[in-house]
């Protein structure tokens, strides 16, 4: 009964721990490795115009977050202009206006694109913009013919669009297609035409314009593809192949037939789009995206703490793994050092000094303290008074080490300040009691064993990957707690007992 209770509790704790961690990993996108890197893209669009003199109105599109990408740090550098943003169909139009502009002017638009780590829900389920039809009556008739032909050769809406697109792309174009396309056979034209043909036949479709983020450089081309509303969502179609997908690196900028730049009262000179790839850690990106979208688990995580508390918790969150290691060593292996969790505390003190110097310092302080303790033994002092005197000795010893280190310009010695002297004192006392009771051999054996365990604890607790896991996923402590509870009901043999009772396991003669 009691065991069942523990099993259920442990299972629940582990499920919560793993569940929250899995959610943070898969949905929020917190990385398991601290240094895992990911790309982001800095996009800059530069537009040059020559103003006629008088009012100038210049407008362009501003990209928005999509299912695949988030757009951050949007900035416009156009000092001569007033800036306003207005929605226009599926897009956001950036209007730059000046009352009295003259000569060449430059407007720069800059933003950072990050690939979403979490899958954001699709924003626009139904197209909010008017399904304009611009084809002439004749053209509409031809469009219907093309649609019927494509319909006959396809199985569903997706393949229909593909078949239709292939008919438009194929070099062996039919008479009807050639009529509709005219001389312009650019992808833009094909995409717009396909959208028109589909609209004439009652489907919802639009041309999409964007850039290929994988083609970094100073003169990025504008790519165009087709989106058709199939079933419940928008489906992208390549106008190069007709297939129902576009490369993942395609970043949608604006939708519809409108040109990117509109200029009133001036002459459009040229536009240049540059794409620069920047390396970022997944961690930084996820945290930035979490702030951007206001995700609860990111904003109420340990990462949201001020820097000092963050540093403290980076250490504190590793204590459970050290404690767990001691539980395993005690109850499964059967090793015991000096004191229950003393090695974890010693390991914490090594953080200040680093391992080698910490071991040296601890050993020297322990040896010196033991000598003093053995000397005090002759003075027949009472317990608490004796402990007090040893604390004072340890403080003086550490002070002397620090001053000497400073004089000798020995850096690690100065880090001693926070070396926990109470831990040191208690260790000295425990070791000396063991010395009295079980002899020097046992005392030294236990002290050395404790230091070895402490060193292992330190190596485990100071390892960056371990620190990252427990800081990014504090719920993993619940998993450790579940395991600890299970060990708490482990009534089997300890490894050391296999040696201790070995004679009893041999078959009786």
């Amino acid at each position, binding site marked *: 009964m009691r065991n069942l209770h523990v099993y259920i509790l442990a299972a629940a704790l582990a499920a919560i721990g793993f569940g929250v961690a899995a959610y943070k990993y898969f949905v929020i996108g917190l990385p398991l490795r601290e240094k895992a890197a990911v790309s982001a893209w800095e996009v800059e669009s530069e537009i040059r115009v020559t103003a006629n003199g008088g009012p100038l109105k210049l407008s362009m599109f501003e990209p928005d977050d999509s299912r695949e990408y988030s757009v951050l740090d949007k900035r416009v550098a156009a000092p001569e202009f007033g800036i306003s943003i207005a929605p226009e169909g599926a897009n956001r139009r950036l209007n730059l206006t000046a009352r009295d502009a003259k000569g060449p002017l430059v407007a720069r638009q800059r933003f950072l694109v990050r690939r979403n780590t979490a899958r954001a829900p699709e924003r626009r389920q139904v197209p909010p913009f008017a399904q304009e039809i611009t084809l002439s009556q004749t053209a509409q008739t031809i469009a219907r013919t093309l649609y019927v032909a494509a319909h006959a050769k396809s199985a569903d809406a997706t393949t229909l669009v593909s078949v239709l697109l292939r008919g438009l792309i194929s070099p062996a174009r039919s008479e009807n297609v050639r009529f509709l396309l005219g001389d312009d056979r650019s992808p833009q034209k094909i995409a717009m035409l396909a959208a028109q043909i589909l609209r004439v036949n009652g489907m919802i479709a639009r041309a999409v314009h964007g850039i290929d983020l994988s083609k970094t450089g100073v003169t990025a081309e504008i790519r165009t593809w087709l989106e058709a509303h199939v079933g419940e969502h928008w489906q992208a179609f390549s106008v190069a192949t007709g297939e129902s997908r576009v490369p993942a690196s395609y970043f949608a900028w604006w939708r519809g037939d409108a040109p990117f730049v509109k200029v009133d009262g001036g002459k459009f000179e040229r536009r240049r789009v540059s794409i620069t790839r920047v390396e970022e850690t997944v961690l930084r990106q996820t945290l930035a995206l979490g702030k951007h979208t206001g995700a609860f688990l990111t904003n109420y995580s340990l990462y949201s703490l001020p820097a000092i508390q963050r540093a403290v918790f980076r250490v504190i969150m590793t204590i459970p793994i050290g404690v767990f290691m001691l539980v395993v060593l005690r*109850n499964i292996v*059967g090793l015991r050092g000096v004191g229950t969790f003393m090695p974890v505390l010693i390991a914490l003190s090594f953080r200040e000094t680093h391992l080698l110097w910490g071991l040296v310092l601890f050993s020297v302080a322990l040896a010196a303290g033991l000598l003093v303790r053995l000397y005090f033994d002759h003075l*027949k002092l*009472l*317990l*608490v008074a004796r402990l007090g005197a040893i604390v004072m000795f340890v403080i003086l010893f550490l002070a002397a080490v620090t001053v000497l280190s400073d004089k000798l310009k020995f850096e690690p010695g100065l880090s001693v300040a926070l070396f926990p002297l109470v831990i040191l004192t208690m260790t000295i006392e425990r070791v000396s*009691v063991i010395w009295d*009771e*079980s002899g020097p051999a046992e005392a030294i054996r236990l002290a050395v064993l404790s230091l070895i365990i402490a060193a292992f604890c330190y190596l485990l607790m100071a390892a960056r990957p371990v620190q990252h896991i427990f800081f990014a996923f504090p719920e993993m402590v619940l998993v450790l707690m579940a395991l600890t509870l299970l060990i*708490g*009901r*482990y*009534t*089997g*043999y*300890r*490894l050391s*007992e*296999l040696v*201790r*009772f*070995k*004679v*009893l*396991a*041999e*078959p009786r003669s």
Partner: protein
Amino acid sequence: MTPWQIARGLEAAGVLGMNGRNGDYILQCNPRKLYPLVDDKLVTKELAQRAGLATPELYAAFRYSGEIRRARELLDKYENFVVKPANGSRGNGILVIKGRVGDSLRLASHRLMNWDDLRFHMQNTLSGIYSLGGQQDSVIAEYCVEFDRVFETITHLGVPDIRLIAYNGVPVMGMLRLPTSESEGKANLHQGAIGAGIDLASGRTLTAVWRNSVVHQHPDTLAEVSGIQIPHFDRMLEIAAGCNAMTGLGYVGVDLVLDRTKGPLMLELNARPGLNIQIANQAGLAGRLKAVDRVDVGKNSVAERVAFAKEMFGVRAVN
């Protein structure tokens, strides 16, 4: 043998491990609040007296530093006596005083000690250096047991004692602990004493272990330690069988000594008795504890429970 095979062998022999003892027996049938009854030997002594069990006579108890000044006044009239911490463990902090040399006290280990040394020792004991967790302690001065002549040839210094494990009123296993020169007169196995298993049916010693290996002779006296008939063993079983009800602890280690004039005396109880007794008996405890669980012994008389133990856990029954 692989570790796995050893583990299965131990399982088959019914050997109780530390985790099993703590998790399945001590945590289940020894409520923490009853520990003071056995951790403090003064309390245990009173308890035993009320239950009519013989214990070594208490000469004096020292609870406060101030009382220690009177140590000589109170104890000088006794030629032999034992000084020990009321909350001590593992036989630490026990001094056995056997006679005087001039103004000095002569210890059983032939060391000499003056009264000041003894007072300092008592002072230290009061401040808790021998108690678990270092809490305030008391000092007991009591009758020094003159152990039975049976053990004369197989004891070096110290007093041999008999440890019985009692579970739910049934003695399940016993061993005779013999001090050696290495254990400095202490009867604790981990300090180098010999442990000899006892056939519960007959009260005869079985094989013995010393430092985890099987021995047949006492390392100091070279006398045979197996096959020794312990006198008054039935009385010891009866004492042990009464200890669970007396303390409320379901799983308890009972330490007894055999005085040559006063017979079996209960020395102390242990709520966390060690597992070495299994090595001394070459037998596992878990199997015997389960055998007790299988029968309802709660309402039976002490005599019936002792008879049950002798029948179930005698050598003939076990083999």
